[in-house]
């Protein structure tokens, strides 16, 4: 698993509209058909995005504004007059801000240590930081429960009268869950800063700290802001960690679930959803417009990046910290398989494979098989739709492509709980009656996770010089042939990366699908939550271990099949 990902970079530098100058060639009938075809495809994609992104959001908005007699703001009045709900909003913001601050700070140190210094063990840190990317987002919480829950190892060893459930639990879990996103983004930014600039500063008499502060960090500032905003959205919308380890500390994402699934109060759930979208959308727009235009790219023919020797006073603390974080992530993920083979965590430490019999539920291990089906379908369909969308946006440039691009990226700012609620509201009635079928799950994964996939596709296409296509056309290949024989083969690596991305998300996602699973069709990730809630952490660990094995195994298998580093792990 390498960290190659163009997707994150384009959050910093949104694709600029450079019109590709195409030689005006005589159009054959085949090319005419091709043009009509691409126009039709553009329309189809726009319709898909309207149906699966815009319509659910509009349904949520409409539900929050619907009263017995037409439009009303009564639900919002109720929200803001409830002391409890306002407190939940404040709690959500508080958790998100604190988690974001810690995550970005730790990620910055890690990224700096790995990209700009010569400390040992850098590969280990990089590798460990990828683990949370490919696992259900709440396995970290589960590990913390095994460590510090009421039956936790540390709790028992030290006879603590304290439990991790609550604010602290959510924050530490979120930090380790979202660290990779921030780390990879910052490593990317720091890795592209030319060392010559630092050397120039030092030659001009600046000390190491001044250089760090005035040169390196200054150049990284937009990247830092971007990382902070993205992590903020992730923490604000996080559902799995708060529901597992939040105890009695509620946040908006979990409260929406309680309102809708517990009390079937759709209006209240929709109102909270809109309240939750606002800060996320603001963060997203600030990132896209303000930060996006301010990336200080150090222009040179390939930035010179070499690890520079550090003064020991800095080197060793950096080594201890980054090594410590890497080691801790390793421990967290070792705990999950360990927990699955201990007979009764906190009581009977003998080893056993009993949990793998899944006797605590008649579903057995079926939810995992369902997850695999969902992941494979989302992977296949999502890859095709995302690549076609990327091609339409980047190469055919039909009128309305801005709309397509904007709608493709919008789900970044949409919390999974809102997608889940929106999909129930939108697809529970004809004409698009999808509830109770696997398709509602597939579409939710595909379109919620669409932005990263489309950006990866666009970036890949950008790297294919249009001149190559033009050359093919000049040699008489024709547009269709050029697409099939030149563009597609160049895209296979990206296609497999996108497939892996959708596949992983199909396996591990929980916040949207928890609204959409239907009788007889549970998913592995949701089953883990249920097993923890029902007091079977060992079974939850067994399910988590199998999911981890499937995800990591399928990435390795795919890489073996299509060749080494052509399959990358994409991230937000």
């Amino acid at each position: 698993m390498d960290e190659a990902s163009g997707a994150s970079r384009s959050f910093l530098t949104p694709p600029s509209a450079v019109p590709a100058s195409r030689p005006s060639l005589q159009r054959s009938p085949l090319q005419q058909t091709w043009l009509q075809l691409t126009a039709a495809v553009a329309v189809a994609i726009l319709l898909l995005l309207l149906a699966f992104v815009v319509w659910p959001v509009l349904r949520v908005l409409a539900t929050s504004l619907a009263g017995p007699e037409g439009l009303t703001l009564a639900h919002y009045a109720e929200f803001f007059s409830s002391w409890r709900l306002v407190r939940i909003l404040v709690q959500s913001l508080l958790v998100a801000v604190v988690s974001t601050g810690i995550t970005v700070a730790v990620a910055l140190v890690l990224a700096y240590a790995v990209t700009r210094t010569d400390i040992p063990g850098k590969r280990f840190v990089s590798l460990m930081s990828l683990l949370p990317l490919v696992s259900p987002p709440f396995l970290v919480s589960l590990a913390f429960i095994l460590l510090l829950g009421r039956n936790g190892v540390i709790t028992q060893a030290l006879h603590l009268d304290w439990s991790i459930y609550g604010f602290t639990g959510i924050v530490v879990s979120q930090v380790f869950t979202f660290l990779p996103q921030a780390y990879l983004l910052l490593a990317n930014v720091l890795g592209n800063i030319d060392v010559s600039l630092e050397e120039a500063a030092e030659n001009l008499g600046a000390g190491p700290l001044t250089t760090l502060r005035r040169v390196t960090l200054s150049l990284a500032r937009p990247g830092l802001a971007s990382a902070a905003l993205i992590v903020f959205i992730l923490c604000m919308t996080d559902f799995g960690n708060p529901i597992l380890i939040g105890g009695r500390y509620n946040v908006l994402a979990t409260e929406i679930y309680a309102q809708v699934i517990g009390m079937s109060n759709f209006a209240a759930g929709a109102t909270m959803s809109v309240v939750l979208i606002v800060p996320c959308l603001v963060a997203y727009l600030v990132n896209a417009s303000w930060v996006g235009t301010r990336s200080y790219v150090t222009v040179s023919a390939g930035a010179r990046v070499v690890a520079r020797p550090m003064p020991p006073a800095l080197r060793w603390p950096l080594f201890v910290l980054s090594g410590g974080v890497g080691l801790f992530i390793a421990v967290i993920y070792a705990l999950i398989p360990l927990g699955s083979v201990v007979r009764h965590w906190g009581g009977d430490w003998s080893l056993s494979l009993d949990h793998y019999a899944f006797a605590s539920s008649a579903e057995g291990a079926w939810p995992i098989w369902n997850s695999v089906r969902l992941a494979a379908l989302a992977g296949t369909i999502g890859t095709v739709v995302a690549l076609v969308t990327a091609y339409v946006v980047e190469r055919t440039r039909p009128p309305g492509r801005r709309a397509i691009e904007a709608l493709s990226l919008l789900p970044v700012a949409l919390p999974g709980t809102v997608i889940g609620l929106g999909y129930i509201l939108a697809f529970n009635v004809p004409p698009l009656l999808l509830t109770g079928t696997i398709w509602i799950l597939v579409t939710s994964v595909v379109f919620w996770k669409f932005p990263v996939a489309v950006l990866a596709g666009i970036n890949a296409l950008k790297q294919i010089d249009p001149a190559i296509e033009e050359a093919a056309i000049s040699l008489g290949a024709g547009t269709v042939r050029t697409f099939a024989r030149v563009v597609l083969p160049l895209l296979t690596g990206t296609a497999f990366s996108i497939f892996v991305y959708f596949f992983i998300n199909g396996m591990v996602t929980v916040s949207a699908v928890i609204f959409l699973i239907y009788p007889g069709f549970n998913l592995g990730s949701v089953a883990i939550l249920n097993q923890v809630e029902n007091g079977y952490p060992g079974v939850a660990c067994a399910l988590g271990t199998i999911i981890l094995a499937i995800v990591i195994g399928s990435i390795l298998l795919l890489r073996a099949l299509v060749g080494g580093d052509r399959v990358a792990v994409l991230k937000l």
Partner: protein
Amino acid sequence: MRRSLRLVLALALFAPATPWPVGAAEDKLVIYTAYEENELKTFWEQFTKDLPDLAAKAAYIRGSTGPTMARVEAEKANPQADVIWGVFNDYLTGAAAKGLLDAYAAKESQAIPARFKHPENLWQGVTLLTVAFAVNQKKMAELRLPPPHSWADLLDPKYKGHVVMSNPSTSGTAYLLLASHAARLGEDKMWQYYETLDRNLSQVTKSGGAPGRMAASGETPIGIALAYEVEVAKKQGAPIDVIYPTDGIAWTFESNALVRGAKNPANARRFLDWAVSKSAMTAYAAWRGAGITRPDVPVGGQKILDMGLINLDFVKAGDPAYKDRLVKRWLEKFSR
């Protein structure tokens, strides 16, 4: 490319066999139930034995009471379920008020006393339940705590941080308890009781079954749980005691109903007939002991109706407006 093609073909195998729902005439029976998985297995085996042809077409979907009923409501425009089986009667009263159920008097249901039936036969009760304290002996010994014997005992500060109960907005058991305490103490005193009790709670779980299981596994010394579930855990060897509070036992009964707009109504009625039959009742009794509604089926064990029960008005408790008010107030006060 050929390798990728092979991969795509392999993936096509994952595609579901029946991608779109197809409606055919009564070749199915979909049952939503809140019975626990373990007892459900016994009941279902009896059903399969009694009506093999119907069982072959039938599928059950199990879930917690709240989510199951929320699903029925969400699917109102396009009902997926034909029958609701074994759900707390107060939830069914609420569902009836929302127009989600159709009336049906099952054959032999005249054998069930009137107090266990909806006056218009929108639901009919089959199994009885009580709420008790699940107390983990091992944990209590470690903490050197005496077991509580009454709701009043539970308020003692010595139990601070040692009690787990469930959340009335998601758990039927917890709402039953809330309504029962309101019936026992009056609403004002009930809120005072909950306020004091809150100081002793270490956790409030989503599912009503969780506190009992947590007490069985030692995650908490005391859980407030359905008595028969704790009895089952005890039989399976958990170091756990069932203690019935001396100052009032909360109780309720589970009922069956026909879903309005059911796609397989004939199958549904046949199942509802079976679900109140003597044979079904005997299967229920295998898990519930005396906790069944038909007096003409002989069972052993202590008759629940002879215990010190709290006198709860089930129709009032099931009224959506009343329930909404109590639950909202509870959330406002105790959910952070």
